[in-house]
């Protein structure tokens, strides 16, 4: 539990065909680890975006590692649309499971609670239901004439994110990003990269303990300073907008994407 390992050892947890949960850009995205994962080339990943993705998802798609994409959106934010995602959609390069944000949260919450499904409002009448045949309409058993959607539990094989800090006991500070707790409790394994490891336990005081993912739910931790770059990390550093824009421009073509990725992986190899 909460074993502190190298980035390579951490990345090895992501194996071909695994269901991988990744957070939205504002939650701490493990970009350095993504470079390490790409180096291993695990194919046919089922990527569950919680509830959306950006550059990380676009890179995994561009590298041809995604077999199934389950997401409520893919966007590079201010830098615009995600080019490898858009190209992959046109070519039918992966199975697309379009979703809506609260349905992704609900699926993970169901897994977190160990129940098979969770009801959720809305969705009925949306074209999402035409392809999301795994979502069902049931009659509210407590109230006549109230059809409601149920979504099945989502249990990722691996959840991965980047956080500011872990302690040497394997507890991870997640602040108010509570969806990271949900992801980790729903997943079979959780791997986390952090900016630094502290010597004192994060559970030692009430103030810090409230915003902590306990080591019980953490499989492996690796240190990766500025590990969310070029994306930002809450409370630590802002997104490198110029770099994201550079990616957005280069990734418009497969060749430009390959050139970008070459530099991206080299940067992390050198840092390691």
């Amino acid at each position, binding site marked *: 539990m909460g074993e502190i390992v190298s980035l390579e050892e951490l990345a090895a947890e992501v194996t071909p065909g695994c269901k991988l949960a990744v957070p*939205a850009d*504002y*939650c701490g995205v493990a970009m350095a680890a993504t470079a390490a994962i790409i180096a291993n080339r695990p194919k046919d990943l089922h990527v569950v975006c*919680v*509830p*959306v993705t950006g550059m990380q998802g676009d890179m995994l798609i561009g590298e041809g590692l995604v077999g199934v994409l389950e*997401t*409520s*959106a*893919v*966007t590079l*934010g*201010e830098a615009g*649309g*995600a080019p490898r*995602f*858009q190209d992959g*959609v*046109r*070519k*039918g390069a992966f199975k*697309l499971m*379009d*979703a*809506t*944000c*609260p*349905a992704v*949260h609900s699926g993970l*919450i169901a897994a977190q609670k160990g129940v098979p499904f969770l009801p*959720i*409002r*809305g*969705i*009925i*009448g*949306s*074209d*999402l239901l035409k*392809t999301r045949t795994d979502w069902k309409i049931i009659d509210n058993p407590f109230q006549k*004439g*109230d*059809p*409601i959607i149920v979504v099945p539990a989502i249990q990722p094989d691996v959840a991965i994110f980047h956080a500011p800090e872990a302690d040497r006991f394997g507890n991870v500070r997640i602040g*108010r*990003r*509570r*969806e*990271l*707790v*949900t992801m980790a409790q729903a997943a079979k394994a959780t791997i986390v990269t952090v900016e630094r490891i502290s010597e004192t336990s994060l559970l030692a005081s009430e103030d810090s303990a409230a915003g902590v993912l306990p080591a019980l739910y953490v499989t492996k931790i690796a240190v990766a300073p500025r590990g969310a770059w070029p994306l930002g990390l*809450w*409370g630590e550093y802002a997104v490198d907008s110029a770099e994201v824009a550079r990616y957005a421009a280069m990734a418009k073509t497969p060749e430009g994407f390959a050139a970008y990725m070459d530099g991206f992986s080299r940067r992390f190899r050198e840092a390691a």
Partner: protein
Amino acid sequence: MSADYSNRELIIATVADLLDGVRHVAVGASSPMPAAGAMLLRARNELAKKQRVRISILGSEEHNFFTNGGVELFDCTAQGRVDAFFLGGGQIDGEANINLVGAGPYPQSDVRWPGCFGSAFMYYLVPRVILFREEHSSRVFVPKVDYISAPGVSDGIVRPGGPHAMLTGMCLFSFDKERKRFALKSVHRGFTARDVRENTGFDYDAPDIVPETKAPDAATLELLRGRITEELSESYPSFADMLRAERKAAA
């Protein structure tokens, strides 16, 4: 006689008018004009000692009082604690169906947009959803959307929310949920009812004489150019800079 104003300033002032009476409005991270309108209403209410307006800017660290992660917005909405929200779309049709997914056949869309986000939930549950799309063209306002991310109206389900109005760069529409139809309320200065008709792909109702969208008064413009621009700088720095540059060029 009102002071001179830009179309953007008119849109922001109209957003504030459309939000009148709300207690809590949620705004997307990439929606500077709706956010500006919400901030304008908040400032106005504060000065008039009217009820306090809470604004949640999604993804912002400063303008966000949620502590339970990304799911809290949706929980808060389902509890009836979000009064107003903004939605847009790559396509919007005459029944207020919105498409955030893509143009052409699904799933291999010719043009793919980011995706539904929370629309297939928020559109159903927020009482006052304002559809906002600055680009007013027949490419956006189509007879029928290629993909329904969320429908404008629903029958036979619990749905306390839905479209309240639609604001574009050219005009303001109201929406009649019973008749499933938009009605043209006003056109912005510089545009005519004919411009709207020619650039809208769906049919809608319109009065014989279409009024001009209410111009922002001097007090509104003063707030907008001072305090609101400052407030915007925190979450939407490039948009705030653009407003300043627009004003400088006009001066």
